């Protein structure tokens, strides 16, 4: 039984990783062939880096991800704090349900619904460029918000009500009490909300596809447009780099959480 389950697990992981590994391998192919390895070279990486599109898309992706995650973390954290002070459950639940719609709806519907809004408003105001960086940013903030609230809210709910009261009792104004006492308590939730928002924004293709302007391309959009053309290993090279970046990020965040765990164990 034990052996069987080991084989089963190994098999699934192998199948899960083969395509990615093959893709990484062929990014070093010396020819444009995607079936046969004809020799190792960095030709496709050189090709990739010689294209201004790549850097432009990388820059755009990072600018977008940073701004979307910062904005959604600020708005979402403030919302999570405010929601806990709602006296009527009905209103709180209504707001939360609406917030969660982008999380449940298929991305394509979220993207299209926002695109229709932007197009309509663009028509109404007679603007030529209906979609732009700003519409894309709005879309990204919108689909990040539920995830930020989802990670911050439990931290607020589990924080004893007496903590902010104690801070105010000891002379803090409500604002001081938030920054000196409440924020440090909910910070892990805020940070994980921020990271989640950042990665989601970095990774998003579908919603971006419908809400971005012609002149603003992100990495996922670049990959999409590249795969529309003839298959060439330069996409493999770009993908390999992105996979490596994600792996490094994941390992780093795991390490930092391990340190945190060790710290927590010490404090107990």
């Amino acid at each position, binding site marked *: 039984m034990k052996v069987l389950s080991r084989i089963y697990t190994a098999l699934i992981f192998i199948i899960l990783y083969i395509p990615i590994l093959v893709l990484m391998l062929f990014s070093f192919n010396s020819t444009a062939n995607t079936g046969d390895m004809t020799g190792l070279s960095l030709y496709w990486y050189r090709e990739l880096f010689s294209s201004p599109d790549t850097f432009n898309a990388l820059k755009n992706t990072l600018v977008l991800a940073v701004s979307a995650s910062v904005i959604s973390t600020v708005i979402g954290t403030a919302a999570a704090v405010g929601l806990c002070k709602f006296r009527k459950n009905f209103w709180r639940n209504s707001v939360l349900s609406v917030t969660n719609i982008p999380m449940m709806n298929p991305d394509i519907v979220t993207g299209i619904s926002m695109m229709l809004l932007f197009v309509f408003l663009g028509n109404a105001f007679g603007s030529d460029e209906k979609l732009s960086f700003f519409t894309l940013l709005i879309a990204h903030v919108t689909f990040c918000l539920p995830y930020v609230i989802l990670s911050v809210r439990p931290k607020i709910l589990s924080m*004893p009500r007496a903590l902010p*009261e*104690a*801070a*105010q*009792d*000891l002379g*803090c104004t409500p604002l001081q009490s938030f920054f000196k006492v409440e924020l440090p308590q909910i910070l892990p939730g805020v940070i994980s909300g921020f990271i989640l928002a950042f990665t989601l924004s970095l990774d998003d293709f579908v919603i971006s596809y419908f809400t971005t302007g012609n002149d603003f391309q992100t990495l996922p959009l670049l990959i999409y447009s590249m795969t529309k053309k003839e298959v060439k290993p330069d996409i493999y090279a770009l993908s390999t780099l992105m996979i490596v970046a994600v792996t490094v990020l994941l390992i780093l965040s795991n390490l930092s959480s391990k340190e945190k765990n060790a710290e927590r164990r010490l*404090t*107990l």
Partner: protein
Amino acid sequence: MKKIIELRNISKEFEDEKVLDSINLEIYDKQFVTLLGPSGCGKTTTLRIVGGFETPDEGEILFEGQSINHLPAHKRHINTVFQKYALFPHLNVFENVAFSLRVQKIPNQEVVKRVKEMLELVALKGFERKNVTKLSGGQQQRVAIARALISHPRVLLLDEPLGALDLKLRKDMQNELKKIQKQTGITFIYVTHDQEEALSMSDVVVVMAEGKIQQIGSPTDIYNEPENAFVADFIGESNIVDGVMNEDYKVTFSGHTFQCVDKGFEPNEAVDVVVRPEDVDVVSVAEGMLQGTVTSVTFKGVHYEIIVDIGGFKWMIQSTDFVDVGANIGIYIEPDAIHIMKKSEFSGQYGDYSTFSDEIEELGNSETVGD
């Protein structure tokens, strides 16, 4: 003595439920005042109104004669020791204690000096760098007290501060709190449901029930001269029976007329009669003023707890003499052991031991958190 806090006709409702019903209370400087009552009696709400965490729906709260209804918590010279301490987990012992000084932007040198003094006062010298979440309950308690006292508040509010500690530690902390209060001369307002705690620590006990103050007085007054059946029952053990005050110094209950020391009632006024279990003497049937059958005997260490059925009413008697279950005995009561109270809304609800069991008592006491 100077009046420091005054509550005038304070009322408060939560979701259409009246939690406080027209509370009037005066608290004097340097006193140790205890708000005592079962959970849900409104004692914690009263404390929170004084602390500035709740606003009363009606009435006024005065601090040295000035209304502070609209003064937020952070502007009141009143600090709180919270029920579960509410220490800031992200700060160490030193920074927790120093918190209010840091908020006031007091120079570091002075902060260090005052924190040191404070930690000495609560016997936590050398704990400065410790993580507060690693401390024992008693130590956390001390940090909470030091943190609340360091800014020299005029009044310290303590919300069941010893509730989470075990019995032995609780006794020690009771003494220590009393000592700290004497030493600092700060007015303490202390909330508890534990009558023993209230009696042993306080200058003044305020007994509360159902959102109203039932009695205000010194611990001895409260014990010896309870104002109604609720107070008599809540403070210590009591046999409370219906009686008729025939005339001054003469009361009839359980079919016998007793000499007593109370006067000033209408002739033949119906009253509640309180007799403490330790004031009842067990005698032979012939000598007894009343006679009854023993229904249970429990050994309690210092004494036996005897339940006696007298004419259908179960009396509790604490006696060092052993009697057998089923035995017929007589009881004798001295005139000064009889306390007469006016009839109240609580009459008939308390003081009969027919459904009494230790277990129920325990359950009642464990219902401590959050009222």
